[in-house]
């Protein structure tokens, strides 16, 4: 099963654009649900994205790229 990683609605405030600053884990790494996996920036606030499920991480939005609301920035394939 695959779970999408999207920026939670409450992190956006009035903004529509953010940016990926860095991924904490590499593409293909095993992560556990609730672990921080990436840091993103919305306005000038640095926020962390946590894994919505346990499994293998696939990175879709690379660091320094602009992301929008509802954009799938990564996926987690659970075993």
């Amino acid at each position: 099963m695959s779970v999408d990683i999207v920026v939670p609605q409450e992190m956006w405030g009035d903004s529509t654009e953010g940016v990926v600053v860095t991924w904490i884990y590499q593409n293909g790494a095993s992560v556990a649900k609730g672990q921080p996996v990436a840091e993103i920036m919305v306005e000038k606030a640095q926020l962390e994205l946590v894994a919505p499920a346990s499994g293998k991480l696939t990175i879709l939005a690379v660091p320094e790229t602009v992301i929008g609301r509802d954009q799938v920035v990564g996926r987690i394939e659970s075993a």
Partner: protein
Amino acid sequence: MAQPVPAAAAGSERTLTMARAGREAVFSEMRKNPDMFVIGEDVAKLGGVFGTTVGMAEEFGASRIIDTPISETGFIGIATGAAMAGMRPIVEIAFVDFIGVCFNQIYNFAAKTHYMSGGQFKVPLTFMIGYGGGYNDAAQHSQTLFATLGHVPGIKIVTPADAYDAKGLMASCLQDDNVTVWMVHKRLWGLGWLGFPLPKALATVPEHDYTIPFGQSRIWREGGDVTIVGLGLTVHNALQAAEQLASEGISAEVLDLRSVVPLDREGIFKSVAKTGRLVVADEDYMSFGVTSEVLAVVAERDPTVLKAPAVRVAYPDVPVPFSRPMEDFCLPNVERIVAAVKSTMKGKQ
């Protein structure tokens, strides 16, 4: 320019920013020591101007993560007194420029009490301080000031250049029983609004606790023709300079001081004795600074190891300009380091 996503790894190692790595050490020590607390401006509600205390107010509560008014003399006095009474305070000063306000508390009380009391009082106080320019914040928010602090006996000063060192040096500071200062260049925190993380400042950081001893420099790159000494951001500039120089056939060794006090005099001399040439890059003011002290190490031990005069690449003795071209001109950037190295190589075949 977008960074490529790192290739798939077998395990699940974490690559952390320096801000995250440093605060991981603080979290860990705070959990072990109920007498440890954080005090400063914007540390609780905001989580630190540079993200040094994110999540701590939620875990440790308002009695241990304490927001203060803009009153450095007051809260550093509080912290010094608390440390003398047996607690282990951590003081955040976001910008090193602000130490001017409260320097009496730092250098007359915090730094000297252990000595003046004949060792009866220890002052286990750690400062977390941001420094450095390069982002047009002008003369009162861009300074480095290693030498201003380092000149006073009784203060240990470290400045990591990557996330691994950020965590290990922070742990060493927090475990030390007297005044320590953990300083991070603003360009290195890994916060998007201060510039995306430099690839080499991000590092694999173990989840377990570890320390890095004070006064132990680190060789980032070995070389045979010249030693480039840097610390903090200038390590990254020196590494880029070394890359450029390699393409021109010059082999540069890059030595990261990691500690300003105590200074790894043995490590500096050993490297310079091997290469025979020395360039020191520092964003603090040139005169009476870290660069001078590094040159003094060689001059005092054996200046005959030098095949050419040593060169300092530091901040000119002027206040930091606001204008971008003027500030860029002053910074110890890659171009200035490359030129300095080449000036030491004249006549070498």
